[in-house]
């Protein structure tokens, strides 16, 4: 952990400057991001006055053909969340920017109704009046009874913090795409089902009609047809037609995955082989048994049980009947999955954006330290490289939630289950997971850019560039009345959104059909139309919603700008050129001088009355340059706009939050609710889906560790034992106490490059020498039984390899420690109050230690003679001097670094694929008994 978000808010500027004067500045990319508005003297945690809701939430709305836009549900499902916020109004807003209701029906030249396989669209939208900003994800679901068989829906992530939406656009888009994909898959399944039923009905009706006609024919000997007979014949004909139509529809919906396969750049989603193998086992775990079966049999089974009924050939008018609910539109399993995914999204992105950003920064930096980061970092944290992985994680969680279990305890196999279920869903071909394919490209890109262009580019920039690459449309729409100064762009884009949602929608929709350009920036506020140079990359990004357009090569992807090689150019491109390009793209901002340089007072007046216009999501570079170690945050944000979480209502707002806050409190008995310093801690930090459990663990471990170093005066030698690779045995009668101590101390245990930390929480069997190789921290049961005697006997036998912390008598038997390193790590007078903060403190000290170990390990002359003749003693001397003088290590601290260096060597030398045989290194040093 390089940066500690908690620390950020505490930093005062004066202190910072002092520090900066005394010490040489860190490289930009390593410095802790400071809160950018500290100088304004505003309370960064003040709630945004303008927003009418207390926290972020997800809204699902529908544009109903009967009643117009309407909110369907919110996540979290709690009335308090949205507060006084007008959901109906906002639904209207977000639905009004939907452009894609490309109506189905009888396209000219086609005999039968065609289903459109419409791609989702992703829009960022702001509403300053409401103080709401939203990422809006539009999608359409199929409904046999709906007009044109489609029902437009949208999912929106609504936040009061514009910058969260902007900066997390990529992530939001990825996550929502997954949710949408899941929902649509379920919908296709349900739709196919419905069609099957309808066909059965029609077939039955046809038979009945046919029989009736025959009877009439026989009964009729007059030689001419009665009107009744003609009516029947007509009806029969229309039923026949309807059957053909429906069969065609069924064919279309079933062919969807095949169609996607045909597309050149479509990579069908394939689960990993390991997961594949596990499929067989997990299928039976599915909540409903029918899901495990292949789609066909499932359909057959349902169809068989279905009794067809006589229906009218002409379907009823849509106003005559109740439309299906969202739940009915989608297969129940997939619906639940989607909801779980959305809950996950909410959990991931809740809280302040600074958490998300710091998290991302430290994650990216850690990934670079590939040589040392295995030592103290969470394996899950490091492994989690792609959003894909996150998805699996959250799918697992979702599955768990489905089973009404605690999501935090989701084990890995659960993840497998959900994937398996995907595989065995209604479509027999691999389900299209477009996002997966895109994701697989993005991280690579992000990394390469980060590595090559560290100095110039914040990695977030790269992220955003990635987003542009994905061929999604990014729209930034001002929803308030638009300024008259807007001119039409070449793509006819900048239509002012009229107050009438219908009109707006149809207009935008019609525009879409002709345009291939997806980017629009509708600006009404000149002072805000600050368009950083990054924007130029986004404008040519093509839209690709309609399957018909897929054939056109140019429209598919905008790659050139993404090329890491091009990044250099990007930096050089002058703003003038930039301006020109933007101008040509959307013809705005010409009149705005602020286009060239940001106005300093921008921050103070962010929310102009007439509409909010935001720039495509990206962190601004100006911001970074302006502030030392700048927060990669948008410049145009006001101090008051950003944070809002502090409200106490937030904490009790919903079940999840209260759960998490309870959790917080439970692990912080020494928590003193004083002043502002602790405030930031109260904000439930956004948890990475895969890391949520470990996040909790960190907090707990940190808190326990804090308590340990306060309670036990001999904490230092104990920690030294762990850091120097000497196994520490926590001996005690009570499992809970021992486990608590083990959890506390586990944060000091360096991993040996194996999968998990070498920690055994509870052991009842006698120790063996093999155990010391495997585990560096062991919780051991003390019993009075004969078996317990054996345990103690073994312990005393192997006492030279272990330090023994007796939890019952509060003693410690271990070697002496006289170094200075641990005292910084574990100061019992520390002012740190919270577990998570302490955890981060520990991580930062340990990271420092790792860097020392790294230097020591990889300095050639410290280990090998310079010349061939140089005796070994010289090398040893040089090594010792380096450790003592260069690295400033004293006494036993040497052994810590030497041990870590040994681990680094072993890790580096480890043959890929072959497991290194575990070593046990030890010293023959006397132990001492410490008592309280």
């Amino acid at each position, binding site marked *: 952990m390089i940066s500690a978000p908690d620390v950020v808010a505490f930093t005062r500027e004066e202190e910072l400057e002092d520090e900066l004067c005394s010490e040489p500045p860190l490289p930009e990319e390593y410095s802790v991001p400071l809160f950018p508005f500290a100088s304004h003297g505003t309370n960064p945690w003040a709630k945004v006055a303008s927003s009418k809701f207390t926290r972020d939430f997800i809204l699902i709305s529908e544009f109903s053909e009967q009643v117009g836009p309407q909110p369907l549900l919110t996540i979290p499902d709690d009335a308090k969340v949205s507060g006084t916020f007008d959901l109906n109004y906002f639904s209207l807003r977000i639905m009004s920017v939907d452009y894609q209701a490309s109506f189905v029906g009888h396209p000219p030249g086609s005999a039968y109704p065609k289903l459109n396989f419409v791609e989702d669209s992703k829009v960022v939208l702001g509403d300053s009046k409401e103080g709401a900003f939203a990422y809006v994800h539009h999608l359409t679901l199929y409904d046999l009874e709906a007009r044109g068989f489609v029902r437009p829906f949208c999912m929106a992530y609504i936040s009061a913090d514009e910058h969260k939406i902007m900066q997390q656009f990529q992530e939001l888009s990825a996550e929502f795409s997954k949710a949408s994909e899941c929902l649509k898959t379920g919908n296709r399944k349900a739709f196919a089902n419905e069609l099957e039923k309808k066909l059965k009905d029609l077939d039955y009706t046809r038979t009945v009609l046919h029989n009736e006609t025959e009877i009439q024919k026989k009964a009729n000997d007059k030689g001419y047809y009665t009107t009744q007979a003609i009516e029947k014949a007509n009806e029969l004909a229309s039923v026949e037609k309807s059957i053909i139509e429906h069969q065609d529809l069924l064919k279309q919906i079933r062919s969807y995955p095949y169609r996607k396969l045909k597309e050149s750049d479509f990579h069908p989603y394939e689960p990993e082989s390991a997961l594949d193998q596990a499929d067989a086992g997990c299928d039976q775990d599915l909540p409903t048994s029918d899901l495990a079966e292949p789609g066909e049999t499932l359909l057959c089974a349902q169809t068989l049980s279905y009794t067809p009924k006589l229906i009218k050939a002409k379907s009823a008018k849509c106003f005559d009947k109740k439309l299906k609910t969202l739940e009915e539109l989608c297969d129940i399993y997939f619906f639940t999955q989607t909801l779980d995914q959305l809950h996950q999204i909410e959990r991931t992105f809740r809280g302040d954006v600074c958490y998300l950003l710091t998290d991302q920064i430290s994650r990216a930096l850690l990934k670079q330290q590939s040589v040392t980061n295995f030592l103290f970092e969470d394996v899950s944290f490091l492994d989690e490289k792609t959003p894909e992985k996150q998805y699996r994680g959250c799918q697992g969680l979702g599955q768990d939630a489905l089973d009404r279990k605690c999501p935090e305890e989701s084990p890995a196999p659960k993840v497998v289950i959900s994937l398996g279920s995907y595989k065995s869903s209604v479509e027999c071909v691999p389900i299209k997971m477009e996002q997966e394919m895109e994701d697989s490209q993005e991280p690579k890109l992000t990394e390469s850019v980060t590595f090559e262009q560290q100095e110039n580019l914040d990695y977030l920039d790269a992220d955003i560039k990635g987003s542009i690459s994905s061929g999604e449309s990014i729209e930034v729409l001002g929803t308030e009345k638009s300024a008259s100064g807007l001119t039409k762009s070449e793509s006819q884009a900048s239509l002012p959104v009229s107050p009438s949602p219908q009109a707006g929608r149809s207009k935008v929709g019609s525009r879409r059909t002709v345009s291939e350009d997806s980017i629009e920036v509708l600006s009404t506020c000149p002072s805000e139309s600050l368009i950083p140079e990054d924007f130029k990359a986004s404008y040519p990004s093509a839209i690709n919603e309609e399957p018909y357009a897929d054939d056109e090569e140019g429209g598919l992807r905008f790659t050139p700008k993404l090329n890491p090689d091009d990044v250099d150019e990007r930096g050089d491109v002058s703003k003038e050129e930039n301006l020109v390009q933007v101008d040509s793209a959307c013809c705005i901002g010409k009149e705005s001088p602020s286009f060239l340089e940001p106005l300093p007072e921008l921050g103070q007046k962010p929310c102009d009355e007439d509409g909010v216009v935001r720039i495509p999501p990206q962190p601004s570079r100006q911001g970074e340059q302006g502030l030392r170690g700048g927060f990669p945050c948008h410049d145009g944000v006001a101090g008051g706009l950003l944070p809002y979480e502090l409200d106490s209502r937030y904490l009790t707002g919903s079940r999840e939050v209260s759960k998490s806050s309870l959790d917080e409190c439970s692990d912080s008995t020494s928590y003193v609710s004083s002043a502002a310093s602790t405030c930031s801690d109260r904000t439930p930090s956004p948890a990475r889906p895969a890391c949520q459990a470990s996040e909790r663990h960190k907090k707990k471990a940190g808190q326990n560790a804090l308590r340990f170093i306060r309670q036990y005066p001999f904490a230092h030698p104990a920690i030294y034992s762990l850091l120097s690779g000497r196994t520490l045995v926590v001996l005690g009668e009570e499992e809970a106490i021992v486990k608590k101590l083990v959890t506390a101390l586990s944060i000091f245990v360096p991993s040996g490059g194996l999968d998990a930390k070498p920690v055994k929480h509870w052991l009842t069997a006698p120790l*063996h*020498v*093999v155990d010391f*190789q495997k585990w560096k921290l062991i919780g051991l049961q003390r019993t009075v039984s004969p078996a317990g005697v054996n345990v103690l006997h*073994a312990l005393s*036998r*192997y*006492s*030279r390899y272990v330090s023994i912390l007796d939890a019952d008598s509060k003693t410690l038997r271990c070697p002496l420690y006289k170094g200075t390193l641990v005292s910084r790590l574990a100061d019992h007078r520390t002012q740190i109050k919270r577990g998570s903060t302490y955890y981060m403190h520990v991580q930062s000290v340990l990271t420092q230690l790792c860097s020392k170990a790294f230097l020591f*390990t*990889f300095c*050639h002359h410290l*280990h*090998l003679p310079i010349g061939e003749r140089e005796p070994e003693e010289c090398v040893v001397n040089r090594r010792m001097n380096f450790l003592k003088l260069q690295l400033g290590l004293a006494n036993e601290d040497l052994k810590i670094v*030497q041990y870590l260096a*040994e681990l680094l*060597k*072993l890790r*580096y*030398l480890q043959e890929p694929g072959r497991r290194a*045989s*575990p*070593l*046990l*290194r*030890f*010293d*023959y*040093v*006397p*132990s001492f008994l410490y008592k309280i």
Partner: protein
Amino acid sequence: KSSVQTIGEEQIQNPYTELLVLKGHQDIVRFLVQIDDCRFASAGDDGIIFLWNAQTGEKLFELHGHTQKITAIAPFSSSDASEEKKNLILTASADRTVIVWDCTSGRQVQKVSCFHSTVKCLTVLQRLDVWLSGGSDLCVWNRKLDLLCKTSHLTDAGISALVELPKNCVVAAVGKELIIFRLIPSNDESEGWNVLEVKRLVDHQDNILSLVSVNDLTFVTGSHVGELIVWDALDWTKQASECNFWDSSVHPDAQPEIKLSQSPNETSVQHLTSDEECVFAAVGKGIYVYNLQMKRVIACQRTAHDSSVLHIEKVPNRQLISCSEDGSVRIWELREKQQLPAEPVPTGFFNMWGFGRANKQANQAAKKMQENTPMHVLELVGDLIGHSSAVQMFLYFGELGLATCSADHLIILWKDGERESRLRSLTLFQKLAQSGDLQLKF
């Protein structure tokens, strides 16, 4: 209260600060045999033979072929200069078979299963290019595993030990007797040998447990009741004997009670080893150093371990390593003790034993001896604790370390941590240079 000398946790002279546990066996591991500079084989009651890399601890081969426990193992390298050196090992098992294994390929080369009894010892006579198997009779085999000749049935108990002597002779320990055999080239065939019993030596009072050749002129035997006899290897006469040397002969202060209190198990000569000067005997729980020239015990550690010492070995730097049933391995150093009449060693020991009343006579006797020869003492310089059960045997690999095998099914490789660390650094930089990571990359 234990009378065993302890050293504590601070062991400056103990170089073994790193260990590797080698897992593989499913039963007691009894034999370790060195194949070449960096390989060794292990075998035990599970009938499986493992080949290991002594440096990395890597398991090289797992040799399956025997159905019962292994009773003897011997390296069988071809000495022919013509062909490339082939590393073979011979293993004998309780399933009455002997198998020849190729250590390079890990394959079974040949199997002999015509034995009437379990082969308990194997000896390779490199000079004659034959090998001998000792069970209830003695068989002579050539390299192609043809039976050249065999003796008549000797005993049901079988030959317990077999050692090569000069002049094409071998000595076999059969029960209480030592039998000298001579190999005579047969007349009819060019390649054949005949085996002839030459002499029987019946000086031992009890079963002979250990038989070791010191040099071309001498060999030594030890029996269950603690007799140690030094023999002339040429004329098979008794050069010297040390009967009951654990008490009266060397240490006249021994009390009769002590003798009674000692069970035969505690006086049996479990294992013998020697260098040019001395014979080192593992007797019961103790270790004794017998000087061949002075013909007396020059140093001893009566209770070197908590229980029987199973194997001892002389290593360079006047050090001695012993392993025992108590699961520990101890490193001793033979030091010349300064003349300090005030604290004669034997008395000190008996004090520790609790027989505090050392009589004056004993002290005087001890002093008398100290006058002519320097007193030696076995100093404990380190102990290795890792096994949870009896350590059956160990193999000293020089600076590569020490391999120990035990009844807890494990083999532990003890290594010099400093050296290993240096080696790892070396390989690290070699690997860096190989992958080109030494060049700075930006």
